[in-house]
């Protein structure tokens, strides 16, 4: 099978899924619509992290900064200008990208764990900034004009579109020459540079692209939450959830974060919402077990379990660690 064929299949499946999502949205109960919106927002944030960490090998703990940027951009734009909510989503993505480009100057100097901690520090600085930004409501944040933001069906459809964009970008990274170079960078940066991959350009593009997606997800969050505050949209939990969801499902794959989002949010957060202490315990234990026994995530476990059912000629599980 060739990459192009795979890419076409994935693209088609994605398109079908998006169209189905848009079509069935109005028929769903409000509760299901809301759950769908939440899942799709998490999927977008997890997938954006996956592009950065799973495909390009840059583990970030800074997603919260861009969720917040997106949410505040959308909120402020609607509160202070007359632009529509759709334009505000685009603006949210653009501003998140701009902030990412500015942060890239110091951040992309960093490698490995330093990069991770750098993104964490940046995201906490953003939260502190928002807490003090009185024009944007300071610590109590701002409430969006309820009449001008989408809800219910429209909101779900927006979430579908944004998540489809995230899936689409991931599919592009998964199947394109660009993504191939990213994989080379992740696996061995000096070797990739030796083979003609422009290291900085690729890291920059990935970082900005991932942040744009996260920013757009932030706008959807703002519409769903109605009120945005630093303790919510800028909470470090966004960053941690993205890591958890992508890793549990399987980072570096297209489908992994979809599985991970479903398992973590639907299977853990919702199911264990009456037992908060237990859910902490389960999430923590799950993470340790995943890195210890299934570093390629649940998707790889499923693939491995399904392998005897298929012909022997197909791929061995991707991403198994060399010793």
């Amino acid at each position, binding site marked *: 099978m060739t990459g192009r064929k795979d890419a076409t299949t994935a693209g088609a*499946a994605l398109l079908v*899924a998006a169209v189905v999502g848009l079509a069935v949205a109005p028929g769903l109960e409000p509760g299901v619509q809301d759950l769908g919106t939440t899942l799709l927002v998490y999927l977008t944030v997890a997938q954006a992290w996956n592009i950065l960490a799973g495909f390009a090998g840059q583990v970030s703990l800074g997603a919260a900064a861009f969720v917040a940027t997106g949410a505040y951009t959308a909120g402020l734009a609607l509160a202070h200008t007359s632009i529509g909510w759709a334009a505000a989503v685009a603006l949210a993505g653009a501003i998140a990208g701009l902030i990412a480009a500015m942060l890239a100057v110091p951040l992309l100097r960093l490698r490995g764990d330093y990069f991770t901690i750098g993104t964490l520090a940046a995201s906490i600085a953003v939260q502190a900034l928002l807490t003090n930004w009185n024009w944007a409501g300071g610590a109590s944040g701002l409430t969006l004009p309820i009449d001008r933001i989408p809800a219910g069906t429209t909101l779900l459809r927006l979430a579908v579109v944004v998540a489809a964009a995230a899936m689409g970008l991931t599919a592009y990274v998964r199947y394109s020459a660009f993504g191939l170079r990213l994989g080379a960078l992740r696996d061995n940066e000096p070797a990739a540079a030796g083979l003609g991959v422009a290291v900085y350009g690729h890291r920059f593009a990935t970082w900005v692209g991932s942040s744009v997606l996260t920013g757009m997800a932030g706008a959807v969050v703002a519409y769903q939450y109605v009120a945005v505050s630093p303790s919510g949209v800028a909470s470090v939990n966004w960053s941690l959830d993205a890591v958890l969801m992508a890793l549990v499902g399987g980072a570096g794959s297209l489908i992994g974060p979809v599985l991970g989002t479903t398992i973590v949010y639907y299977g853990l957060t919702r199911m264990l919402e009456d037992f908060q202490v237990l859910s902490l315990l389960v999430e923590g234990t799950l993470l340790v077990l995943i890195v210890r026994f299934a570093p390629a995530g649940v998707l790889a476990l499923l693939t491995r379990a399904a392998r005897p059912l298929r012909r022997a000629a197909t791929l061995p599980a991707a991403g198994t660690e060399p010793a």
Partner: protein
Amino acid sequence: MIRRIVATALAVTTTVGLTACGSNSSSEGSTDAVVIGASMMLSGQTNLETIRDGYQWAVDEANAAGGIDVGGAKRKVTLKILDNRGDTNTMVQQVRSLALQDKAAALLGSCCQQNIDMSAQADSLKTPLVMGALPIELRPDGKGYVWDSFQSLVDGAGGFFQVAATAGTNKKILLITNNDSQGKSTADLYKGLAGKAGFTVAVSTDAPAGTTDYSDAIGKAKAAGAEVVIASMTPPDCFAMWKQMKALAYTPKLAIGLQCAQTPGWASLGAVGAGTLVQMSWIRTSGLPKADEVVSKYSAKYPNDNDLSSVALGYHEATILLAAITKAGSTDHEKVNAAIGQTDLSSALGKVSFAGGKSATPSFVGQWNADGTITQVWPKQGASALKSLSGLA
């Protein structure tokens, strides 16, 4: 190849499909229990199990009487309470699932900053929310689905200045607040009232939640000779500040700890906390309805008046809501909402009558004793004499 299509399709269907199953059965039959939802901090930095007990008390009372009368039929009440660990994201998601999936007839509020984020959700979901634990001035004007019955900052501040006037201090104030909305409005209010009461704010500063070093503010207050401390901050922070004031030998003559001195953890400060004033919406000497019952039912579990006031608050809110559902004769959000607006009753925090979604309940000023109890010092009815601020002397 085929595997990939299947996997993609599978993943998409799980997302859509699982959500569909998750919400199968909650269609609303008229004999089903009435669901009331609340998302609150039951773990994490703050623990509101006192308020939860108050909610539960009111609901148990109603269920013990066979349920509440909704349009002529007796229906049991189910109180669904979720713990959000103080995380705003979790709270929003929980409130939405309570309203949309559990079909809660109405919501009960939680506390503090969370109430503000929750108000926006109530308006957005068009689901009535009865809340307290946030001074009524601080609630933003919304779309009419939020009902706040709690003490007013202004009343409390007025009470404080009446007490302060009798304390024999030099009228200079150190005002320190959190930098969130509650802190800022508190600061503005106290600055305004101070002038009228003949006080001057000598030092005014703010600090983010989580601050542990207050030496800058304390140093300025010492330099300015401020003898009155007004501190408004979330709980663990002010413990550090009180210890630091003591250690840095700053000896004000009068101090009030808004928000923070309202938690029972204050008692862990021991002697240092003695004499500090605290603003309350309930105290056992208040003469409020049900006050004796609160004490007799819960003082074994919660010996402290602060905790008991939270129990009373929970009971108060839940009572308002249950009465409104009966009055509406329906669990329809609009009807319940309209009925809350016409509430006319008196419960654990006093008389309720909403105007603009708000109904002020009485305020009290108490004073911490070294043994961890609180004595009412204002208003006069039920009050004891003001003692000195022994903890910081």
